[in-house]
């Protein structure tokens, strides 16, 4: 029922857009099938498959961890813990019904957030350091820095829609999710007025909602 209501109405209005993204993304199913086969083998305790998965995805997943924690050493710890978790829980992958990179990405973000919180609990000067770095991550006129290699179909859709946001909106929306930050935490870390952050997030989400509706 819910699927019909929320997904069924959306696909029809923008066929040209659906075409575009299907056309742009011819390799995704192949890549997904390869990654899924590897995860299945890992579930059977195949260490060579873990290495193969690492070789294919570690760059991408490390980039994600780095974006969450902001420091090479911490990102490497998070990546290490993530792959140990992948090794132990590969058998649960199929039940998640997720595209493989989505499943892997959730694990890595979660481990990276754990690591970030542990370090923040350790000492405040480190978070101050992170704030400095955060403030520099908003150059304002950077082009869309998103990267779609290995991305699932759904991530392609989000990528298209994020591309329509202003750079700062996109950045604030991304950081809110990736670092699990509230409006006021974002305002503090980015040194922006709270009202500005709220407005950017609200507008960003509004635009995403109308755009994502085309992809369902």
């Amino acid at each position: 029922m819910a699927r019909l209501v929320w997904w069924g109405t959306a696909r029809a209005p923008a066929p040209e857009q659906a075409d575009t993204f299907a056309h742009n993304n011819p390799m995704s199913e192949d890549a997904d099938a390869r990654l899924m086969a590897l995860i299945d083998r890992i579930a059977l305790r195949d260490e060579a498959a873990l290495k193969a998965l690492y070789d294919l995805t570690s760059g991408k997943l490390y980039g994600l961890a780095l974006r969450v924690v902001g420091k090479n050493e911490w990102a490497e710890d998070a990546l290490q813990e993530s792959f140990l978790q992948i090794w132990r829980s590969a058998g649960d992958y199929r039940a998640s019904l997720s595209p493989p990179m989505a499943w892997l990405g959730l694990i890595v973000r979660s481990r990276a957030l754990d690591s970030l919180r542990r370090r923040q609990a350790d000492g405040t000067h480190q978070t101050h350091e992170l704030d400095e770095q955060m403030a520099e991550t908003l150059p304002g006129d950077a082009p869309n820095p998103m990267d779609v290699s290995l991305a699932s179909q759904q991530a392609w859709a989000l990528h298209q829609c994020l591309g329509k946001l202003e750079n700062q909106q996109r950045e604030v929306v991304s950081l809110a999710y990736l670092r699990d930050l509230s409006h006021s935490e974002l305002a503090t870390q980015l040194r922006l007025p709270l009202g500005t952050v709220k407005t950017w997030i609200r507008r960003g989400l509004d635009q995403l909602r109308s755009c994502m509706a085309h992809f369902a």
Partner: protein
Amino acid sequence: MPAGGGATAMNLLKNPERLDRLASAYALGTLRGGARRRFETLAREQAPVRAAALIWQSRVASLNELQRADEPAPAVWTRIDNLVRADREQQTMAAARAASPAPKPTGWLRSLALWRGATAAGALATVLAVVTAVGLRDQLGSEIGALQAQLAAQPQIEYVAVLNDAQASASMLVTFDPKNGRLTLQRVGGFQEAADKSLQLWALPPSGGPRSLGVLGQDRLLQLAADEPDVREVPTLAISLEPKGGVPSERGPTGPVLFTGALIQKMI
């Protein structure tokens, strides 16, 4: 649930745009506090609210897939590989214990006896060489892996220990060949004692004080003579830092204990 909650749910279900807005803010994580809890309550009660939340969680999570790739240091894979091996060995050991009759988990002595039983029964074909692969330093991991492979190829080696320092970094690999009465020590860490000091190897038997097994020279690869009774059923080895030439066995270590590790009988 109170009537108020139901009324809110009804309002929300009649207003798909508002539901969508709340669901997207919920998924992004910017819906906080009481508003977040109320939304979660509604989602548990109303499938359409739950569906909207799940759809947006999945959409927003795509951000994870869109971050620019970067190159992790090569050491990261080595560490993962070490952890995975340790994980496997722990499982193998647990399986061996489970498969053995009447295990009495009272320390190393009994474990050793148990493992011998498991070997005799042919339950294990693995060389259980390293208990603590966790925390190995990067480049050491591969070095130890290579040594393990070598060891596996030498059937006369029956006892193995990896001695770690306080940071759980492997510093010394010890093997014992009972046939030839020879202890072989391989330095795998960067530690080098000062010229006026010596490292001394001790057996720590389950009862009685530490027993000296010998004093180490400065080389990376060292050999000491030892008889099997000196080594058999010793659960732990330790290395202390002593004055040059070491101290008498009866007195026990006088300097700091730098490295310790469990001595394990190798499974054939």
